[in-house]
């Protein structure tokens, strides 16, 4: 078993986990409407960072690397972990890394090498004096959970003692134009699980979680106890009509676990018509319709490679404050199953939750988290 030592969320809503929690608790959303941004012909709604406000750490880092470093630096500052040790593994979760460097307007003097995500990961880990070969997890939108599962496995197998998991993605012209071509974006703030939902919003953020062997962490730390990755084996972009992979992943992490103990299932909830319906079917099949369900996309949009880490960390912080966060943008249930969508911030005494994600390539991932010690 592995336990959390420290974490961070670096987003347009704040640069620490606590600042982010307070912003969301106060019903703030980072979603704004942009026109002409990224030199795109069509307007879009997204959660974007102020690039000028990103710390520079000297001249050797791209904006993507600066974002990841800023998030890791804050998390490291909150625990005594020495990141230079050979027993510390860096794991980067990203879908597109430095991809904006392909754009002549963003290219600058950066070399082609920086486009390789493992090179960016080495640069980020190197900033902290870590010389061990980093691992990059790039499993589309499930990356942030798959990266935490990789940390569980590596620590469990003893190949490292601690793992620094950082999820990050920037929203480039590349990504937004692609989702526009897919007609997957809502031009308004997204409305997850709502009857009127019309698509997702893109979001920029980084988030970090530092894990170590459970016996090396305080007893009341959050523990990542189970993780599973399953494929729909159905279509590379369309969610499964039967929720196949998400159902199987949920089943794997909840089997034998008393789901009454779950405070919430924090789902993907991108607000595309097909995704939310697919998750509703998967939740039903996994027997989880009674458990409160929420999604954070209405505050942050879809933060891609950061999503799995950010949404896990924010859910931990909210439960530490005795709260199941509201699903912003949700009003009237618009899926075929009676999902218990959390429509307002609700008090909870729960100390366990499930996090669910799915993505292109038919991948689905779920994890079970439990807080240690006694309340």
């Amino acid at each position, binding site marked *: 078993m592995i336990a959390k030592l420290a974490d961070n969320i670096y987003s347009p809503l704040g640069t620490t986990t606590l600042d982010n929690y307070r912003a969301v608790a106060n019903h703030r959303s980072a979603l704004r409407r942009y026109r002409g941004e990224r*030199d795109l*012909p069509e307007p879009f709604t997204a959660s974007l960072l102020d690039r000028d406000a990103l710390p520079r750490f000297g001249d050797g880092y791209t904006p993507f690397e600066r974002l990841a470093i800023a998030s890791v630096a804050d998390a490291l500052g909150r625990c005594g972990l020495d990141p230079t040790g050979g027993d510390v593994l860096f794991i980067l979760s990203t*879908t*597109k*890394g430095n*991809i904006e460097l*392909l*754009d*002549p*307007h963003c290219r600058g003097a950066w070399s082609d090498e920086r*486009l*390789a*995500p*493992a*090179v960016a*990961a*080495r640069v980020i880990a190197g900033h902290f004096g870590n010389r061990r*070969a980093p*691992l*990059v*997890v*790039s*499993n*589309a939108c499930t990356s942030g959970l*798959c990266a935490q*599962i*990789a940390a*569980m*496995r*590596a620590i*469990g*197998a003893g*190949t490292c003692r601690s793992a620094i998991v950082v999820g990050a993605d920037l929203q480039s*012209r*590349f990504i937004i*134009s*692609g989702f*526009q*071509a*897919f007609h997957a974006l809502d031009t308004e703030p997204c409305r997850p699980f709502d009857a009127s939902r019309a698509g997702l919003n893109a979001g920029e953020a980084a988030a970090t979680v530092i894990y170590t062997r459970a016996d090396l962490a305080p007893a009341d730390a959050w523990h990542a106890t189970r*993780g*599973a*990755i*399953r*494929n*729909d*084996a*159905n*279509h*590379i*972009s369309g969610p499964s009509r039967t929720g*196949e*992979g998400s159902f*199987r992943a949920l089943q*794997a992490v909840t089997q034998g676990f008393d789901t009454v103990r779950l405070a919430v299932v924090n789902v993907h909830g991108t607000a595309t018509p097909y995704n939310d319906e697919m998750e509703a079917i998967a939740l039903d099949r996994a027997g989880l319709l009674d458990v409160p369900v929420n999604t954070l996309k209405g505050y942050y949009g879809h933060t891609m490679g950061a999503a799995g880490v950010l949404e896990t960390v924010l859910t931990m912080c909210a439960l530490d404050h005795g709260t199941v966060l509201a699903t912003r943008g949700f009003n009237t249930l618009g899926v075929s199953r009676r999902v218990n969508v959390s429509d307002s911030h609700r008090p909870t005494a729960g100390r366990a939750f499930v996090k669910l994600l799915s*993505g*292109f*390539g*038919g*991948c689905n991932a779920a994890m079970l988290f439990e807080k240690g010690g006694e309340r």
Partner: protein
Amino acid sequence: MNIIKRVTITPAGAAIDGYPVPVDGRGMELLTALYRHTAGDYPKFFKMDPLCRLGFVATELLLDGDRRNGCDDRAVILFNRNASIANDRRYQATIPHDSEHFFPSPAVFVYTLPNIVTGEIAIRNRYYGETACYILENNDQTIIEEIVGQAFDADPATTSAVAGWVDFNTEVDFLADIFLALKQ
């Protein structure tokens, strides 16, 4: 973990457990020739980006004789260096800053993720088990076998795996080096 079969493909040719596969062609033509030699009746192949084509034909060669169609205990765990860069460049070419020629292609965009190849393999064989894509700087067999071994140990549902290196940079610079592994 027990590795029972290995397939390698370079721009110059393909081999199964070191024995050359008798097909002609180089680069992308080699991949098409391998497709004709193996599947032949899966027109979706021609919709795939180069990375997926490489992973697809490598897997077809690997699974000949042990396909286990429609199972949930076989994982697909692939590694590479260049993510989806060859296709990313193709997509970038559809979104120039000159608006006259700005026509982002959804069919190209969908392949701008390195894990799509694991999905294509899962769809082809109806594998509902774990699929994962990891990116490393180098084709390091020690790390690869370590991570595949951890997947067996950590998830009791996984009893076999299609795993290894599938990397596509350019038509003259690609490598598939994959293996079929059993838990026992």
